[in-house]
């Protein structure tokens, strides 16, 4: 037995980013409730895993517990009667039927009480009446477990891995092994279990614990897994390594005999990149991403607390295994030929790393409130990509610079009225609306708050949230309360309305007028005399007037600016708190009013129709679209002539 010491290359990292909430204390460790000591043996030919071990579980609620709920999520791929398979969901990952079914069969489940051992297997219910789903098992206990008491379970099981489908499975000798062991559902404070079948759009929710897992694979296979290696050995043609990590709530691993490896120590974290042959450039890009992300996220959301991070780039044929997060292990993706400038590998890597915070450290219920992890994390991704790559943070290629957050805003724009964001994963009608609302609209909402109320405030608010709820299980109320306290009640109410009430907003400039300035005409009694002023005598030389009418449609109220542009090119801005539904802005100046635009800096990304935010005064020259005409003419001529002579 030797300690694993690969001596990764050290990287000092960029200059330390400024901590956004240094005054907010963070928990050093989680309250470890469910701990697993497991041993797993992979047969890469049969694609099976035999597992055994013990589970130590404590009743962390305030009530005695008489039953356990265990998640057997690999059974989601057992047949087409599972909740996962029968969900009529399109437009999201994992929609294909696996070519090889997967399952988990529990062979032993024994309650250990000193010398006494009682099998629980016989009474375990894996199905409900009239439901063949076997992913959510109820285990009656022979006696109640009082609050604060601990029990130990001995468990043995066999996994049959599916062909790779939604985050787990095999492709040839490649194995991504996730949701692979019997896992006790999260026990809430009130004594209820947050248990649920594995839904197509749903993810996970678990108690923290210590994971001590020994993995046994054939010699020649390279393993990536949650937690640091504490022991390795090779015997009888097998490679065995032990991984131990506290303060986590899941464990995933991968084994493949073709993995290439890059290692680097970044700010004290041993980062390992596992990638297929020919993906050296991607591995470098993923390391570059982590060199940026570790200090950036550390400053914003608190220091990454684990000693290791493994980045797994699955082969393209197993892309369904990519783009997923587990504690200290993330999977990325994208094809090998993708040129630099298309920042998809960077975005996926930084997104999955962000989940170490929004899922890993702030372990919200992903099934009940998916926006709390995916939405916040999507915002964090966009924020980080913008900080790193600038305005072209989504792609910067062939002269086109598209921002990550702008792409999210456009995706979100079309779904705001369909469903609310704050609902369970299983409640969404389609995978498309789930993606657009949970990921994109939440990110757009947070970005709008940041732009409307100030980015430093938003940085601090999320910094406070992630520090305050580190190693906790925050809820939407916790998020709204933090935003309200750190940014203000207006921001908190906008957040609540947008999340729970399908809140929306559309600012529109509905009227604009511009004319020479006039005094009042008519009859006036002044100084005891009646004076009549004709309309043509009221014109004030070199003075022009006008007005702009702005309306706010929808239920969200953001402060905005309105920019007034005069014929001579001069510009002035007027602020509006956005509370009322109408706002008329008078204009007076030495040059006629030519045009006006609401939100000239594009702060309100949630605005449903940016194309009605401006107008040109009647009779004034519109700016038109000469740039489009020029570009379109050039490219049309180019196409017409053929690209070659």
């Amino acid at each position, binding site marked *: 037995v030797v300690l694993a010491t690969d001596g990764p290359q050290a990287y000092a990292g960029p200059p330390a980013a400024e901590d956004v909430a240094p005054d907010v204390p963070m928990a050093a460790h989680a309250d470890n409730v469910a701990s697993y000591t497991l041993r797993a043996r992979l047969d890469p030919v049969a694609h099976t895993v035999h597992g055994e071990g013990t589970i130590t579980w404590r009743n962390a609620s305030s009530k005695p517990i008489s039953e356990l709920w265990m998640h057997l999520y690999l059974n989601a791929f057992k047949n087409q009667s599972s909740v996962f398979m029968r969900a009529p969901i399109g437009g999201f990952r994992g929609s294909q039927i696996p070519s090889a079914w997967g399952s988990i069969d529990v062979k032993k489940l024994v309650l250990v009480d000193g010398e006494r051992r009682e099998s629980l297997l016989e009474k375990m219910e894996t199905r409900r009446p009239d439901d063949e789903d076997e992913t959510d098992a109820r285990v009656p206990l022979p006696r109640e477990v009082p609050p604060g008491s601990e029990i130990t379970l001995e468990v043995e099981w066999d996994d049959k891995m599916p062909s790779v489908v939604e985050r787990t499975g095999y492709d040839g000798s490649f194995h991504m092994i996730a949701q692979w062991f019997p896992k006790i559902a999260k026990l809430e404070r009130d004594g209820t279990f947050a248990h649920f079948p594995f839904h197509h759009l749903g993810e996970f929710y678990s108690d923290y614990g210590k994971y001590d897992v020994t993995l046994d694979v054939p010699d020649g296979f390279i393993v990536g897994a949650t937690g640091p290696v504490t022991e390795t050995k090779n015997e009888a043609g097998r490679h065995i390594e032990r991984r131990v990590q506290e303060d986590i709530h899941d464990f995933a691993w991968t084994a493949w005999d073709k993995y290439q490896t890059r290692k680097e120590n970044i700010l004290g974290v041993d980062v390992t990149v596992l990638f297929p042959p*020919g993906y050296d450039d991607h591995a470098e890009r993923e390391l570059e991403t982590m060199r940026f992300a570790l200090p950036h996220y550390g400053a914003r959301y608190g220091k990454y607390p684990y000693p290791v991070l493994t980045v797994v780039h699955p082969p393209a044929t197993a892309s369904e295994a990519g783009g997923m997060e587990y504690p200290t292990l993330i999977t990325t993706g994208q*094809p090998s030929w993708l040129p630099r400038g298309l920042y998809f590998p960077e975005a996926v890597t930084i997104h999955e790393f962000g989940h170490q915070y929004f899922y890993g450290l702030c372990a919200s219920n992903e099934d009940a409130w998916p926006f709390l992890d995916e939405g916040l994390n999507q915002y964090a991704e966009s924020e980080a990509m913008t900080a790193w790559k600038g305005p072209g943070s989504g792609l910067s290629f062939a002269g086109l*610079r598209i921002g990550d957050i702008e792409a999210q805003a456009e995706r979100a724009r079309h779904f705001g009225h369909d469903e609310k964001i704050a609902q369970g994963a299983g409640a969404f009608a389609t995978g498309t609306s789930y993606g657009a609302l949970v990921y994109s609209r939440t990110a757009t909402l947070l970005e709008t708050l940041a732009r409307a109320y100030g980015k430093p405030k938003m940085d601090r608010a999320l910094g406070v949230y992630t520090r305050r709820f580190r190693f906790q299980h925050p809820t939407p109320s916790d998020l709204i309360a933090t935003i309200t306290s750190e940014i203000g009640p207006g921001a908190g109410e906008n957040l609540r309305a947008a999340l729970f009430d399908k809140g929306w907003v559309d600012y529109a400039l509905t009227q604009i007028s511009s004319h020479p300035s006039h005094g009042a005409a008519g009859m006036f009694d002044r100084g005891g005399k009646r004076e009549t002023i004709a309309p043509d005598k009221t014109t004030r030389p070199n003075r022009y007037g006008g007005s702009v009418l702005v309306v706010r449609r929808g239920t969200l109220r953001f402060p905005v600016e309105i920019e007034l542009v005069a014929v001579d090119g001069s510009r002035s801005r007027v602020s509006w708190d956005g509370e009322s539904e109408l706002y008329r802005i008078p204009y007076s100046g030495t040059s006629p009013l030519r045009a006006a635009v609401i939100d000239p800096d594009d702060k309100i990304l949630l605005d449903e129709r940016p194309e009605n935010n401006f107008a040109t005064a009647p009779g004034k020259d519109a700016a038109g*679209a000469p740039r*489009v005409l020029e570009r*379109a003419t050039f490219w049309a*001529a*180019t196409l017409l002539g053929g690209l070659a002579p």
Partner: protein
Amino acid sequence: MTEPRDDEATAATDVNAPEKGAAPGALEATSPEAAAAEADSAPAATDNTTGALSEGRARVRALEPRQIRARRRPGAVLFVWAWELLCAFFIATPVHAFAKAVWGNHPDGDAVIFRPGGRALLTWLGDEGPALAVVFRTTFLLLVLFGVLGQIITGALAASLATGIGKSGRAPSMRFALRAGGAAFFPLLAVCVIAGAFQAFLVGVGMFLSSSVDHGLQASSGDARAFTMRLVVLAPFVLGALLVGVVADLARVAIARDVALADGDVSMARRLRDGIVAATTTARCAIGRASLAWGWRAAASLALVWCGALAGDAVGGRGDGALWLLFGAHQLIVLARAGLRASWFANSLRLVLDR
């Protein structure tokens, strides 16, 4: 393409069909000296054809290979550029109208579309109304329409390059060239369709084979190397498609020259067949030279397009002077590419005549 002066109207002789027994499409060139001598002795050319083209034929003659140079036809190159600019303007109109309708009243106009981050651009392209589909379809149809009509211009360019007036081989009139292009329209269109179909077939087969190789190698070599092999397998097919394009250009110029110079009622099918035979015969003799001649011009043309894209990127959303400068630069590029095309056609004509 300049109008001939009256005093030169009869200074050239007619060079018509190939001699009996000559290879199909192999048009005989008359030397300038011989033509001039013949012109001196013949007060007027015998015209046994009808219409303006035949009238033009009475004045033009075939140029010798060494006389066929793009630089001798600046008017033709300018005409091609003007045609492309005009067509491009029409093709650009729907998208311009759409942009103007959506963003034209913004104080900054369509400059917002060019802002980094691309919010306005995405909003515009993400429009859920029917306008975008109408704009795209109309643009596509206009592109196809002008592409088809462009066969006339292709024929006119080749005819202008291949023929000349008088001893010096001065450019024939624009009317003559255009009529020649019009007369060659259907065979040229047929070449376009046949070559396009053949190219699509080649690329399709290449894609099928390369895809099979890719899938076959993924398990053993990994997807990255399999993808590299996919490109390696696909490359000869793409190269083959490009060579088909080169041969098609040889056929185009042969047909256009044939139509411009030959008289009598020759069927379109015959012209097409003769052109293809001339092109394939030339390709058998000089495919290397033809490919090289096309290749460097193609590379230069692509480089110009890339420069145009970079210039557009550099200017971004700026307007006024910068936009006018960009317009000038872009049109210079279009003009230069028209020149390269004329140069390639001239080279093709020489190769066809030299075979």
